[in-house]
């Protein structure tokens, strides 16, 4: 994925080493990481770059600042919202809401009906029975963060 990033991974690390993390957080490089874990596997010095990328994304996500990669962040946000609301992924909703909110109404428009007809997308999705417990997990995490007990 390095060819899609404005700062290839080694440059991300270098900027961090020099304390220039704002440049990294404001950029889109970290959002173009596919989490394929190849970097951590190959690094001769055992630097876990995949974990560093996760941490940078969290910082950027929390900061809610001027990151240049809104589409990927939007997709992530909707995915997590689905979990909170339904318990499991409601894929049709994920795709539809994403298209609307990103202003790409025509995206994958032809695919939708094909997938529906083959049963690969469900029109309606029922919530989990234990969706209350799931909500509790989210709530407890928010609580811990407010109290400063968790990052």
């Amino acid at each position, binding site marked *: 994925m390095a060819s899609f990033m404005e700062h*290839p991974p*080694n*440059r991300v690390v270098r900027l961090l080493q020099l304390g220039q993390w704002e440049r990294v957080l404001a950029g889109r490089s970290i959002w173009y990481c596919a989490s394929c874990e*190849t970097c951590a596997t*190959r*690094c*001769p*010095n055992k630097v876990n770059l995949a974990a560093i990328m996760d941490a940078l994304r969290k910082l950027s996500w929390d900061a809610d600042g001027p990151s240049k990669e809104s589409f990927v962040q939007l997709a992530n946000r909707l995915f997590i919202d689905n979990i909170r609301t339904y318990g499991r992924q409601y894929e049709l909703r994920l795709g539809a809401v994403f298209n609307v909110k990103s202003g790409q109404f025509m995206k994958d428009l032809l695919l939708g009906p094909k997938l529906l007809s083959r049963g690969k997308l469900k029109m309606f999705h029922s919530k989990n029975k234990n969706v209350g417990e799931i909500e509790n997990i989210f709530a407890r995490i928010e609580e811990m963060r407010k109290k400063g007990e968790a990052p």
Partner: protein
Amino acid sequence: MSRIGVFVCHCGENISRTVDVERVAQEVGKLPGVAFATDYKYMCSDPGQTLLKKAIQEQHLSHIVVAACSPRMHEKTFRKAVEAAGLNPFLCEMANIREHCSWVHEDKEEATVKAIEIVGMMVERVKKNRVLPTITVPVTKRCLIIGGGIAGIQAALDIADCGHEVVLVEREPSIGGHMAQLSETFPTLDCSQCIMTPKMVDVVNHPKIKLYSYSEIEQVEGYIGNFQVTIRKKARSVIEEKCTGCGVCMEKCPVRKIPNKFDCNLGMRPAIYVPFPQAVPNTPVIDRENCIKFKTGKCGLCQKVCGPGAVDYEQEDTLIVEPVGAIVVATGFDLYSIDEKPKGSPIKGYGEFGHGKIPDVIDGMTFERLASASGPTGGKILRPSDGREPKQIVFIQCVGSRAREKGISYCSKVCCMYTAKHTMLYHHKVHDGQAYVFFMDARTPGKSYDEFWRRSIEEEEAVYIRGMVSRLYQKGDKIVVMGSDIAVGVQVEIEADMVVLATAVQPQKGADTLAQKLGISYDKYNFYSEAHAKLRPVECATAGIYLAGACQGPKDIPDTVSQASAAAAKVMTLFAKDKLEREPIVARVREAGCVGCFACKKVCAYGAVEEKEIRDRQGNLIKVVAYVNPGVCGGCGTCQATCPSKSVELDGYTDEQIVAMIEAL
């Protein structure tokens, strides 16, 4: 009745600034047993030592305490002075009131009191000191050198030229080691074999060098000056004295397609062979595993055609014991391979480079054999897979080295230089070829090294890309190399005809087993450990054994030759005397108390503890006790700390002496 002399040194201002030295001398002078106490500005100086010697003679002093700097500084100085005045040097002790007192405190009153106590402790201790006679050990003036590469050869020639006998043992059928496999050497591009073969011939012709080729070390016993080494001379199946090196046997041998290790398995050899045409000795060896005669009993052609009748199928390994006084270990290196390693191995292979299965991905030594005029392709750079000339070669640096993840964190030192050399050799032979080098850093510290490296870029048109290679895979008959160029900040993909990996330098296989036979230390990579990294680089902690060459750490030829000559010099220092004098601070076993548990033997780092049988007058065995060989003991005292029955003590550091110091406080 002791007559102790105490000499308190001012050490210029170093001690006197913080400690009231006159008062110390005064107070200590009042202690029982002290016959004479004085202070002086510089005890270690000439007048200071004269003062010491005069006092001994005039005052009839029996023991001496010099209160001054650390014994590591001047203990030898004062003991020599005391000896010159006629007293046994081990009746002289130093009280450290500098490093242990004046240099670490500021309050003058407290420091002075402490200094008085320190000197008082040493006064009580020295009363328990005994006369310790110097230990002498005879020296056999013959040197064993293990390994016949350039390090072993250089050391052998240096020592033999001094008139001492050298026994040179080499595992392979010929001496020469890896240097004989190289084509041209940096930074001058000298032909490797051309500069080496004269030295190899010198070795075999030298009257003082006894060469055991195709031999290994079986066992080592003894200690410095007196080793007994058992050498296994492996069966060549050829009688060396009769063989004239005519080579007819090799021509006629029907088995012709055995991969030749010397040619990195690219070239073929027969079952009866010499590893390369310039082999020394030029006597062939029969590879019994692949020889028809040894496998099935048929053939026997070489014996029939051998004029002098030198082929002997009945020949067996022989064991020979050689007495030597010193051993130089020069076993050299081997290259790391990217093959899949067994599960749980601390060193990993490179699956991302194909685990060694892609035929045109080779290592540096294989490239040398391709480039060498006496190699399997006659010096032409050709692809092992189809014999075509590669038009694009990618060289990758740091394969295995500097990679914690793969298990090797060190730098292999020689690869930056030899890769630059490879690009030059390639450019000279394939004018329209393009070399790419993926590197992290360029390490070129030697004389003319960086200029040589720059030549590769500026004159030989090599393209150096700073960045590493993530993966390579076969695509058709090319190899796709996926790397990165961090200067530009992009990923790079090159379709190469051949890839040369600069693999890590590792010690030879079996280095650890040999070290255990010799009783020397080695590190986690199996490189042999020198006694002190800066000040004693060619000696081992084990007395009498020296190191030369890449077995101690990755090294290029200039450094190897330097180290070999250095090791030779150390050996000659040893041989310069007929008897070896050793400091008598050695452990001594009180046989009456020893129960024979040999805990001391287990903890002794020098291997100095032996077993001794105590028998009665009829010859019946009463018990087996420990005996410390004074020639090998290093005086560390670990045995004394370990012994459960308190039966072993270090002369000069007995329990009595230490307890006296403690009780004096």
